């Protein structure tokens, strides 16, 4: 069964910590995405990548960075965690023809920054 795996389901971090969220897909997809999901705001795109070592800013990149050293792995980094980054983080992947096949999402990481 093909899937997107996020390394942690729940995380609690302290303000100012550097946080790494890992995402791995086993479908050989070209595209990978990081979203955050907040009540009333829906899914907002943080960063995306169409190829290894390539990254593009989404709608809300401030306070985040990403790394894609291998095709199957896309990491989201919170350089200095803040309480307003408490959220559900969703990783997704898609083939280059995303219009037909859509996104495959991971189960999410619920991050709490205290």
């Amino acid at each position, binding site marked *: 069964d093909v899937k*997107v795996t996020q390394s942690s*389901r729940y995380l609690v971090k302290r303000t100012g910590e550097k946080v790494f969220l890992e995402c791995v897909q086993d479908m050989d997809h070209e595209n990978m*995405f990081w*979203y955050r999901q907040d009540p*009333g*705001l*829906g*899914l907002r*795109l943080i960063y*995306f990548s*169409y190829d290894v070592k390539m990254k*593009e800013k*989404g*709608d809300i990149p401030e306070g985040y960075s990403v790394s894609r050293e291998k095709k199957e792995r896309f990491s989201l980094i919170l350089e200095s965690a803040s309480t307003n980054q408490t959220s559900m983080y*969703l990783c*997704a992947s898609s083939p280059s023809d*995303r*219009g*037909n*096949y*859509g*996104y*495959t*999402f*991971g*189960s*999410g990481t619920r991050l709490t920054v205290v």
Partner: protein
Amino acid sequence: TQLLEQSPQFLSIQEGENLTVYCNSSSVFSSLQWYRQEPGEGPVLLVTVVTGGEVKKLKRLTFQFGDARKDSSLHITAAQPGDTGLYLCAGEGGNQFYFGTGTSLTVIP
């Protein structure tokens, strides 16, 4: 950012009832997708519609893409408790999909 507004935001109905949820935008999309998300999980793709006016059926679910490709609807016939979840529409524009804020559906047995 291209906005997709979904209505209603919350919906609670009895098992066996019919319902329709809406996804509206002022932007034109090359394709539109519907996802369902269950608590504690990521969204799962239900359907993709591409052509204006297109209608697709998935068992008791009927999806329609507006003629101008700016809006879409999801109709569920004889809702079941297993239909409970957050329904998200997503429109393809440029190099990404833009997601609506979702409709949270609860079907009461």
